[in-house]
């Protein structure tokens, strides 16, 4: 018996703490904005506590339950912290802390009237996400899920005086509710199959009861599809992704970071909870893995291609989130396929890689969104074409963003590389599968993954090269200053998280293994987990190995070698000169690449993925302007026709409404007769 509270108690305390700080802080901030930084640091302290609670839960692989009075009659609030929850709590606490510290510096620029409500929304947003991760019955889950959706909507429309922001917010709300309905349907199908031993009624809606239900194949498929689409709508599953690149960028940067870095992961959590936790791996079919896998691969490619064409840095990052969620889905599909076709080792590896990528993405995407915030703040606009030369003016944050860029591009020895490497190792076990079609699907997934990852490198060369390198393209970028101390600490915190994840993969995998064990009952190979912190050996004995720490050490050792050579051979003096301009000394910022021109080869080569409208001016035109608009084809081929259909239906329904009371009475009477007839014959 220890005096320390157990992980679940700690998490619940943080939940209450965040909730109370949100409300108290709201009133304090209305009095004076000086409370802002201390309040945010308080929230961050909660985040650190939460991360430790998650770590503790993972280390001890605890599975704690708690029932709190309240809720619906017959259905009190159920809370539970199992390893899956612990893992995502670690993600939420770890990445959230960095974002909160950053906000303490960043929010100073927010106009005073907006501060109290922004603080309230941020704190409630974090608390509701934590609630989603801890909820153990369908009612509580939906309450937190909807709170999360509403609060994040409020965050998205923070700058609600702009029309594009209001539109993006509306679209987000629409999609969020579409997804919620499907999730509710998934819960309903699961609960309606209650086992005979339990009393019927609301108690069937606890996750425990759902986990014991034994749905038939058809119902299981229905539940899986509802969960995939419902949580997919939140995660940006194509074609339900259109809101994501609209809504994520318009929120203030710390909010964008939470939305993209953390909230998308709650959808991943939900999908894993329903499919592996409630439905149970025994009810999944291996063939369901194939569409999930291919959808993930397509998302990865589609997301990064569109990211490459954006000139708004935050929109670029939002599209890149679609890519990364695609990689996570690819891993989940691969896991279902492998585990259910009798290859548990490869399957565990794929699922583990997926979880690893989820936490990686939380750290580097949050870092990059915060970085994008500082870029936008520095240049005054959200257009890459007004930036440039920021690294010289903001060296500290510039180097941190560079680290994030290298990590997200999946380059060794970064953390993004570790998860992508593990996923590739899992894919390469395709030879053990039976059936050419299955193998081809897995290999196609691997081919899409490497293509997307190479394109990501190009996309982030654009992001960093145009934003931070070269010479400034605007007055604002010319006069940019380094960001404030809390902002630097927040970003450095996230970078430190990336580094730990990059250099200590075995430690992380040990934590992930407890999650895998609790979800599927099997584990990663013991040699993988016991091989020491230096060596990553996913598929012993003959499988490949990788040692990020040694690689970094060797790179560090060889780095000065190049510097020694000029000292050995001769001179090492430096002189500043103008750049080579073919003999001319004219040099303007406009001579550099624009964001559009950098993406031009991609637009040219992958033309089928975009809907482009081009206007080439005629030579005789007085004022020739070249115009080009690039659009997501889903708008033209899916959403606008759907909107038109709904508008048409609404117009039809409108005809019923004549405004004359006698007609309405006839309607009521007809309905009554119809109902009576129906009930008579049923």
């Amino acid at each position, binding site marked *: 018996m220890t005096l320390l509270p157990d992980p679940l108690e700690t998490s619940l305390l943080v939940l209450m703490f965040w909730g109370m700080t949100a409300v108290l802080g709201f009133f304090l901030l209305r009095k004076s904005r000086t409370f802002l930084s201390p309040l945010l640091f308080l929230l961050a302290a909660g985040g650190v506590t939460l991360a430790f609670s998650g770590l503790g839960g993972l280390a001890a692989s605890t599975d704690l339950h708690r029932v709190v009075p309240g809720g619906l009659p017959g259905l009190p609030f159920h809370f539970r912290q199992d390893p899956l929850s612990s893992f995502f709590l670690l993600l939420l606490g770890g990445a959230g802390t960095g974002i909160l510290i950053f906000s303490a510096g960043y929010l100073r620029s927010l106009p005073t009237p907006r501060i109290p409500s922004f603080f309230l929304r941020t704190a409630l947003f974090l608390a509701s996400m934590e609630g989603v991760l801890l909820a153990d019955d369908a009612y509580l889950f939906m309450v937190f899920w909807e709170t999360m959706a509403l609060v994040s909507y409020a965050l998205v429309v923070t700058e609600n005086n702009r029309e594009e922001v209001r539109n993006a917010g509306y679209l987000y709300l629409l999609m969020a509710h579409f997804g919620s309905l499907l999730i509710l349907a998934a819960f309903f199908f699961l609960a309606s199959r209650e086992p005979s031993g339990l009393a019927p009624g609301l108690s069937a809606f606890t996750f425990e009861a759902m986990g014991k239900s034994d749905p038939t194949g058809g119902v299981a498929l229905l539940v899986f599809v509802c969960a995939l689409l419902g949580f997919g709508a939140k995660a940006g599953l194509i074609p339900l992704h259109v809101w994501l690149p609209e809504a994520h960028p318009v929120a203030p940067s710390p909010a964008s970071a939470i939305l993209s870095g953390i909230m998308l992961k709650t959808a991943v959590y939900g999908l894993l909870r329903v499919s592996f936790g409630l439905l149970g791996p025994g009810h999944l079919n291996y063939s369901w893995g194939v569409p999930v896998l291919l959808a993930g691969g397509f998302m990865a490619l589609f997301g990064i291609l569109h990211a490459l064409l954006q000139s708004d840095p935050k929109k670029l990052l939002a599209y890149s989130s679609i890519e990364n969620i695609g990689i996570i889905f690819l891993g989940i599909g691969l896991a279902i396929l492998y585990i259910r076709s009798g290859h548990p080792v490869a399957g565990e590896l794929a699922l583990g890689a997926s979880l690893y990528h989820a936490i990686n993405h939380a750290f580097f995407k949050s870092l990059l969104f915060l970085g994008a915030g500082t870029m936008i703040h520095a240049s005054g606009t959200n257009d890459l074409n007004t930036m440039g*030369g920021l*690294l*010289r003016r903001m060296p500290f944050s510039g180097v941190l963003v560079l680290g994030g860029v290298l990590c997200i591009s999946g*380059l*060794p020895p970064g953390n993004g590389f570790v998860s992508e*490497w593990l996923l590739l190792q899992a894919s*390469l*076990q*395709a*030879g053990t599968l039976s059936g050419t079609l299955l193998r*081809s699907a897995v*290999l196609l997934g691997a*081919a899409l993954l*490497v*293509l997307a*990852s*190479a394109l990501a*490198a*190009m996309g982030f*060369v654009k992001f960093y*090269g145009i934003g931070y*390198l*070269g*010479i400034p393209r605007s007055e604002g970028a010319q006069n940019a200053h380094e960001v404030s101390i809390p902002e630097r600490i927040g970003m450095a915190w996230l970078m430190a998280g990336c580094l730990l994840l990059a250099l200590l993969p075995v430690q992380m995998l040990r934590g992930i293994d407890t999650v895998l064990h609790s979800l599927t009952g099997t584990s990663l190979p013991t040699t993988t987990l016991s*091989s020491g912190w*230096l*060596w990553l*050996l996913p598929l012993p004995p*003959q499988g*490949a*190995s990788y*040692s990020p720490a*040694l*690689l970094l050490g*060797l790179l560090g050792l*060889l*780095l*000065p*070698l*190049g510097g020694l*050579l000029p000292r*050995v*051979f*001769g*001179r090492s*003096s*430096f*002189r500043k*000169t*103008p*750049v*080579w*301009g*073919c003999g001319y000394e004219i*040099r303007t910022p406009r001579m*550099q690449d624009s964001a559009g*021109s950098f993406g031009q*080869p991609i637009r*040219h*080569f992958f033309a089928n993925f975009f809907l482009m409208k081009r206007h080439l001016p005629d030579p005789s035109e007085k004022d020739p302007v070249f115009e080009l608009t690039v659009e997501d084809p889903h708008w033209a081929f899916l959403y606008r026709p759907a909107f038109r259909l709904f508008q048409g239906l609404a117009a039809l329904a409108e005809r019923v409404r004549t405004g004359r009371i006698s007609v309405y009475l006839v309607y009521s009477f007809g309905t009554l007769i119809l109902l009576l007839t129906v009930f008579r014959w049923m």
Partner: protein
Amino acid sequence: MDVSPLSLRSGFFLEGAQLLLALLGAPLLAGWIGLCRALLSNRSPAGILQPWRDLLRLFRKETLLPEGTSFLFRAVPYLVFAALASSTLFIPFLGTDPPLAPVADAVVLVGLFSLARMMMAFGAMDAGTPFGDLGGRREMMVGFLAEPATLMILFTASLWSHSTSLPAIIHSLLDASDKFHPSLLFALLAFILVFLAENGRLPIDNPATHLELTMIHEAMILEYSGPLLAMMEWASQLKLILYLLIGADFFFPAGLPKVLSAGALAGGLLLLSLKLLVAGGTLAVIETLLAKLRIFRVPEFTALAYLLATMGFLIHFVLEV
């Protein structure tokens, strides 16, 4: 980690020799290719030592830094050089099992090349000139398909060992070298295309010109001078020889010593030099025969390599299992 058959000292020796030989040999190979190209186009060659003379001269020069660049511009040559020099430790070419090979498998190796490419593009874009941006953009454009193609080739070669560890691949290929593998043939074709694209050779890029409309690699390093330029040049020569060494490992592994004795090492090294000379000569012939592609055709070229490699991969499961 599994115990290496080598003792620590001989392991250090082997790795040191790999690093040293690759660093010294890379400019020589470039010299040999230049010599062959000169002879094939009826010019009098400058000699096999010319790249070494160029490097030494560059190292003795003063560095000119363009105005407006950040510290990243100066750091890039070091990073590129370190990434490629460390790769020499992981590719087995003196013996089948260099002791540091478990640090990085084939995928990590491609990642290191990609790191070097990205760094080079950053260095180019930091100068803030049209040429730098153009070079960086084009290099990334070549890379986005060439890199996946390289990975698919590596995956094809790893099909027999079920592992992407380079020594494991080479052992399995050495054991199965008597059989004909159609998938490896596809992989070899793809490899040749990728090799040309990744190393900036004709028909993708002409290493001998500074014509702004067509240059890729030269545009990227246009602002570099003195020792920094020497490091960049040396790094790209290293990349060329590393690619050829990987190719020799995968497609012509015969003769690679499995045991570490003086005789076996000397024999292996001799055979390896012959392989490299033949490969360099073949490259010179290819470059003499081909004209440069339009820049917009380049993705088609690399896409062909990607498709060939993917086909080789799939064909293994259709025909060979």
